[in-house]
């Protein structure tokens, strides 16, 4: 093996090729930021990476990230509980599903961002408005997937469960619930995406304590190093949160996958 073929063999792995492209982009960014772009607007990635320490040393930033994570967790918990309750109510009753599902889909399709100022008016500029806006973004996808999951149950399973003498609770526990689990976790993933979007939109709109306050501060101070460091950290957190929920989704969908 000569030295020339080693990188070529490495590039033959998809993962290595992906890293290579990311590395090339980082190098371009580094060169552009060091020599071609005004340092008031762009910081080189090496400086951003080294500056992450200074972002979190800024007074109030760790607390702000904590506040935002708390808002996301609270909004997600409420969205899951509400989405599950409404989704089961609509999914298990034919009449209520046909009556209310079109309304749910209509509301889900509305651009909720237009009513963000109202949330601030009603819930204040503190965490409550962020949690509320996260909840309205996260609940609808959970309702829709839970209803779809309950709907997909083959009627023969319900009929045979009843024929074998299962009561309503037993039917729910042993037939409906296991069938709902995979779509429920899909809903949780979509709900988490919605909650993150809602909370961050509200944070960026007006914030006194969360991360929105600091993104505004760093922007107005022309401090791209800390701005990119903070945004990059939050983006990484979003990827991790999504990956966690996705892993749960795959794990709980596994049981019915083979020849289902």
């Amino acid at each position, binding site marked *: 093996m000569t030295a020339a073929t080693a990188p070529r063999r490495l590039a033959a792995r998809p993962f290595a090729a992906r890293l290579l492209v990311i590395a090339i982009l980082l190098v371009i960014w580094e060169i552009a930021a060091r020599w071609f772009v005004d340092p008031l607007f762009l910081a080189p990635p090496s400086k951003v990476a080294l500056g992450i320490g200074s972002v979190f040393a800024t007074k109030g930033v760790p607390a702000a990230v904590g506040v935002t994570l708390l808002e996301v967790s609270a909004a997600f918990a409420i969205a899951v509980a509400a989405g599950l309750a409404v989704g089961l109510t609509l999914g298990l009753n034919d009449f209520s599903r046909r*009556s209310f599902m079109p309304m749910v889909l209509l509301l889900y399709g509305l651009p909720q961002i237009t*009513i963000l*100022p109202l949330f601030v008016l009603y819930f204040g500029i503190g965490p409550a408005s962020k949690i509320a806006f996260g909840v309205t973004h996260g609940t609808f996808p959970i309702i829709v997937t839970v209803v779809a999951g309950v709907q997909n149950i083959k009627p023969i399973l319900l009929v045979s469960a009843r024929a074998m003498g299962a009561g309503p609770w037993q039917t729910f526990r042993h037939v409906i619930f296991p069938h709902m689990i995979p779509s429920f976790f899909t809903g949780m993933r979509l709900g988490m995406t919605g909650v993150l979007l809602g909370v961050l939109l509200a944070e960026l709109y007006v914030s006194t304590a969360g991360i929105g306050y600091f993104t505004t501060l760093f922007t107005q101070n022309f401090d791209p190093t800390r701005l990119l460091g903070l945004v990059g950290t939050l983006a990484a957190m979003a990827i991790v949160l999504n990956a966690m929920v996705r892993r749960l989704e795959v794990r709980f969908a596994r049981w019915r996958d083979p020849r289902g």
Partner: protein
Amino acid sequence: MSPVRRRGPGRIGVRAVQLGVPVALLAIWYLATTRWGVSRILLPNPVAVAQALGHVLATGEFVADLRVTLTELAIAFAISATSGIAVGYLVSRTSFRIRAFEPLLAAIYSVPLILFLPIYVLWFGLGPPSKIALGATISFFPVVLATVAGFGNVDRMMVTAARSMGASDLQLFRFVLLPAAFPVIIAGARLGFTVALLSIIGSETLASLAGLGHKIVELSEGMEMPRMFAYIAFVVAIAAILNIAVSRLEAWGRRP
């Protein structure tokens, strides 16, 4: 859960509920503002909102903001659709490239990219360019992922058959790849359009000088509640019209 469905009466009941709930909500809204003493600043009278909406529509004062928003949307979507389809096609050409880059694009798509708005405002200012850039960035991902999926999942048998019958590259693209991938790409483009609209109204709401999102914020800060509610209704209607229009276009484009 009852497997028995009584079609006739059930359908009337469903219609009754669907009509009754909005009417009841409207009545509660009206009573809350007139009888139950809910503050006018928190919740304007629905009649006042309807009058304000009529005034906004009659005077045509919405035209300037609507034009700003629609121009931003058109430019952003043009950028994301062309670049998304071009990049998606290049990535989809070999299964190696799909395995290398599709997870990367999907991972970025899972980030709430609205986070980058402060950076875009720093780079492009408060005017339309930062909205266009953000809308184009966010809507690029659904388009590129759909294009990769569309071109990437063409039946190998079809490609081999076309090749063995002597199809040139261009013919292969025109008669095999494009027809197979088109429905998926157009679905991605529709999603991209919706996402671009939302991100543009969103970024106008968060930081801007003009546009429909900016108008709502301006009215909210001026506590002009009836006019603010009227504009919310107007923007929701515009969004609904645009979404219905692109859904029609998608259905038209998918027809065999």
